[in-house]
């Protein structure tokens, strides 16, 4: 790609002797010709004479990197940099270092060296383009604009340079300049656009209109101007939808509603299945609030577009009259059931969600009546899909018994329909019967082994049931398993994040289960280790390893997810130049916007949440260990010395060897990356870190926190993180935002407030000044809700206070308190009781989750 093209530093003779210089230039040429080995050989002769020839050191580093001897490369480059004062090296040397840094993805450093090359007198203008690319990649658009401009000045003959200049100006808010840049080029190119350039041209034209539109704001004259421009370019623009949509928006903004409605009708004609256009048509016709007119409108449209969904569906969202709604629902749902449309329920589900009190009872009645007319043998197809529908209907209403009844009828009638197994399993999952659910899916999967969808579903359900081995076995049927025993590596390679996250969560659950077992085994009743039977001690060791393994693997899998996202971010690099060459500025800007919300995407967030549980636990354990360490450590050392007789040493050695063997064998089936790229298959290094909070911030939280929108933040996560790093003021801020969103009688607010309150008592380790600040803020805002006088009193009944004061989301608040019960001095047992008595509000599977993994 473009990277290699930019890599042509020009030589300036500043080195010691002429001969050396010539040799170096020769080596540089060899590098450019990709003859890295020869280049190295030549450089070695220079270095033999003069070991501190910086240029040669740097180039050798780059050569070594190119033949993928990355460790040696790093040491040569480091050596070169050590010998340079600041950045005062030859421009070639700086350029070489810049390229090396770009290859190793240290973009900031790379920018530093590229800039240095230019400052030190390089006349190679190509550097500006590379610089602009890197600056865009790290989001330094201000300097990117400068670089773009310099490059554009040197190479005016390419459209790409004009486009990139305009984009850079646009990003920096210099809209008028951007428009001028684009117009100037249009003038230059007038009449010279060849067929192959027409697409690029059209994109740039509509992009100019985009900028004009953005610049116009609500100014009518300017909008008028934008409209005029749009009409002018219309024949040259390929994206007719984009053009018409823009036109309609302009008419709307100019209050020419009639014209807007005409454009929307045109759009509907072009694509009568886009719901958005119908909505906007209503608005442009000014009938948005008038149900009668809307009904008339959709009646008409339905005649025009009898095969289209929106005109049939939209009236169902607003009709109020019971009889009429009933009739419309009938007309909508029954023909679909009659045809045996499997997705009938999915089609009406939005109505279930938006009009929960009205639509479900009506449809229940309608569909039950319809089912009564059907005969399983006469009309098998409508019969099974109607039963399928009703099962989903009752599942939506959380009536699991009925849901099961109907799906069982369908299954009995036609046991060869895979969908029925999926739904049946889903119902069982909601009931918390994860094992049975997985078995049902497995039965369905056996029917059709080439169905990828049910394969994935089955894998997911087995993971939910913590049966990782079976899940991996099934998943591996569809993966590329060249040199590995299963598909884990391939699933990482293809970035199958759904699988990896599910597996991580399964490992996490197994970790919790095993830990519980281990705690039971080593509980105080087995105090005297010598009298323990061999069996139990082996069991303990086995459990210890499993706890360790599951914890490490959970962490390892959670870590795989941010790796993907970093890759996504990095993948943008090429497009800073590619989009300009191809002339797709609009898509480019979309990509930038996407890149700026990358680390807030659901899958990333889910992995972060999962990892946070482990990291927070590790942090808390560290603190506890530190507190206990004084007396504990002395005791243990004493024990060890007593026990270390030679026979026992031998035994320990043997056991360690056996363990290593076992680990090696197991490593094969859990390895996520090729062996040479991964020295921590079990994630042991990850969980043995001494600085869990720092790791969490660096790997997960930092990026998220930078990108997430203020109103989408997870306040609980923010609170828990800041609480552990001692930033109480930020905890208070999270609390405040939570109160604003959910009110100050919300259970989560209550539990967080209690934790924060207790943190301010004198015996905690937090900064005293911070404590004061927090107390003051709490006094100011919440003195009426919170018992501020009781902060330090150990006898105050916080649980009782919580139960009496807070209402919404009670169970979540209780669970939060449960995690911090030691900090807030609430007795373990009554708190647990309170949680259990509140559980009944949850679905069975959620109850199970709490009982099994949170208490």
């Amino acid at each position: 790609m473009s990277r290699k093209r930019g890599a042509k530093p020009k030589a300036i003779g500043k080195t010691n002797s002429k001969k050396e210089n010539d040799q170096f230039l020769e080596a540089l040429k060899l590098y450019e010709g990709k003859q890295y080995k020869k280049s190295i050989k030549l450089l070695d002769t220079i270095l033999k004479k003069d070991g501190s020839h910086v240029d040669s050191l740097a180039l050798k580093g780059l050569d070594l990197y190119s033949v993928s001897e990355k460790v040696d490369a790093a040491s040569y480059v480091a050596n070169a940099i050590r010998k340079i004062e600041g950045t005062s090296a030859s421009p070639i040397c700086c350029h070489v270092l810049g390229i090396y840094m770009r290859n190793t993805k240290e973009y900031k450093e790379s920018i530093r060296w590229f800039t240095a090359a230019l400052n030190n007198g390089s006349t190679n203008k190509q550097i500006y383009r590379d610089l602009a690319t890197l600056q865009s990649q790290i989001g330094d658009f201000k300097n990117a604009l400068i670089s773009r401009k310099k490059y554009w000045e040197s190479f005016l003959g390419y459209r790409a340079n004009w486009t990139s200049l305009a984009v850079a100006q646009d990003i920096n808010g210099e809209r008028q300049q951007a428009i001028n840049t684009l117009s100037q080029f249009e003038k230059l190119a007038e009449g010279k656009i060849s067929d192959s350039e027409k697409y690029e041209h059209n994109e740039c034209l509509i992009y100019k209109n985009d900028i004009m539109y953005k610049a116009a704001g609500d100014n009518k004259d300017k909008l008028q101007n934008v409209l005029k421009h749009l009409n002018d370019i219309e024949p040259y623009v390929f994206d007719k939808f984009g053009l018409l949509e823009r036109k309609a928006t302009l008419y709307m903004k100019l209050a020419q509603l009639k014209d807007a409605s005409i454009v929307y009708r045109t759009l509907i004609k072009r694509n009568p299945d886009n719901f958005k256009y119908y909505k906007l048509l209503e608005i442009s016709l000014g009938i948005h609030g008038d149900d009668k007119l809307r009904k008339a409108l959709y009646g008409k449209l339905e005649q025009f577009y009898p095969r289209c969904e929106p005109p049939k569906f939209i009236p169902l969202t607003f009709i109020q009259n019971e009889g009429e709604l009933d009739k419309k629902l009938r007309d909508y749902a029954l023909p679909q059931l009659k045809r045996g449309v499997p997705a009938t329920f999915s089609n009406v589900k939005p109505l279930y969600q938006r009009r929960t009190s009205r639509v479900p009872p009506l449809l229940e009645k309608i569909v039950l009546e319809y089912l009564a007319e059907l005969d399983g043998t006469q009309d098998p197809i409508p019969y099974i899909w109607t039963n399928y529908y009703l099962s989903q209907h009752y599942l939506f209403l959380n009536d699991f018994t009925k849901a099961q009844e109907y799906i069982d009828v369908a299954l009995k009638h036609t046991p060869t329909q895979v969908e029925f197994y999926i739904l049946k399993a889903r119902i069982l999952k909601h009931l918390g019967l994860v094992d049975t659910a997985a078995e049902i899916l497995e039965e369905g999967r056996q029917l059709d082994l080439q169905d990828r969808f049910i394969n994935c579903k089955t894998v997911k359900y087995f993971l939910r049931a913590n049966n990782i081995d079976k899940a991996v076995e099934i998943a591996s049927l569809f993966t590329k398993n060249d040199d590995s025993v299963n598909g884990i590596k391939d699933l990482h390679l293809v970035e199958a994040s759904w699988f990896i996250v599910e597996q991580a969560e399964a490992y996490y659950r197994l970790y919790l289960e095993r830990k519980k077992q281990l705690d039971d085994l080593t509980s105080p009743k087995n105090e005297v280790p010598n009298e323990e039977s061999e069996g139990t001690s082996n069991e303990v060791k086995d459990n210890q390893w499993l706890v360790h393994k599951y914890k490490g693997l959970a962490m390892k899998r959670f870590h795989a997810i941010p790796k993907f996202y970093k890759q996504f971010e990095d993948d943008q690099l090429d497009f800073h130049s590619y989009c300009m060459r191809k002339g797709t500025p609009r898509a480019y800007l979309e990509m930038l916007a996407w890149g700026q919300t990358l680390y807030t995407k659901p899958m990333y967030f889910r992995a972060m949440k999962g990892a946070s549980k482990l990291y927070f636990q590790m942090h808390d354990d560290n603190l506890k260990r530190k507190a206990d360490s004084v007396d504990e450590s002395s005791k243990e050392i004493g024990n060890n010395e007593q026990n270390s007789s030679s026979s026992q040493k031998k035994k320990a050695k043997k056991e360690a060897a056996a363990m290593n063997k076992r680990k090696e064998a197991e490593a094969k089936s859990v390895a996520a990356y090729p062996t040479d790229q991964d020295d921590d298959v079990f994630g042991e290094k990850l969980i043995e870190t001494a600085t869990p909070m720092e790791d969490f911030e660096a790997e997960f939280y930092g990026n998220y926190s930078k990108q997430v929108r203020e109103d989408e933040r997870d306040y609980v996560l923010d609170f828990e993180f800041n609480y552990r790093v001692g930033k109480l003021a930020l905890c208070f801020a999270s609390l405040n935002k939570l109160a604003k969103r959910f009110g100050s009688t919300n259970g989560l607010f209550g539990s967080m407030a209690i934790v924060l309150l207790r943190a301010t008592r004198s015996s905690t380790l937090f900064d005293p000044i911070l404590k004061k600040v927090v107390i003051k803020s709490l006094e100011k805002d919440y003195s009426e809700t919170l018992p501020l006088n009781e902060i330090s009193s150990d006898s105050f009944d916080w649980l009782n206070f919580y139960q009496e004061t807070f209402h919404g989301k009670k169970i979540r608040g209780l669970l939060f308190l449960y995690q911090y019960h030691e900090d807030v001095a609430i007795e373990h047992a009554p708190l647990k009781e309170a949680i259990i008595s509140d559980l009944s509000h949850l679905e069975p599977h959620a109850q199970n989750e709490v009982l099994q993994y949170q208490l």
Partner: protein
Amino acid sequence: MGRDICTLDNVYANNLGMLTKLAHVTIPDLYQDTFFTGLFADDTLVTKNKKTPSKKDVRFTQLAYYSEIPVGGLVARLVPKKQNELSLKGIQIEFLGVLPNYRYKTIGSKLLEFVEEKCSECHQHNVFVYVPAMDSSAKQWFLAHGFEQHGDTLNNFIKNVSGGEQDAILLKKHIS
């Protein structure tokens, strides 16, 4: 849409599960699992009417779809030589079943037609089947489709999964 709502298609290793399921549902307790897994044991495509060079039995299998849903199945075996006194040569239907709710829709007839076609392709003149003597509905169905009883009731001829035994009768249809 002009298409027949009922269609036939081959059985492959990947949807063998469908055939197995259909057999277990329509005729419970008769077939061992190995009967089905054996069909694809060494990847011989049994639906091909070529005679396989190996000594293995040649079998024909089909799935019948009603509105894209598999509802019926067939396994038949080519018996080129008479094996004993009682048996016949020709094509033996080992399994032919349609889900109860999809019967009387000519699905079974289609499967039978398929067997008869294969029969003439293989230059055979008999299609025959053993049905349990007690199962009058099966017997009725075959008789209605042109089969005739051949010989007497065979005592304890059919063995089911749990080891029980049943009497059977042999029905055959002559294909000219």
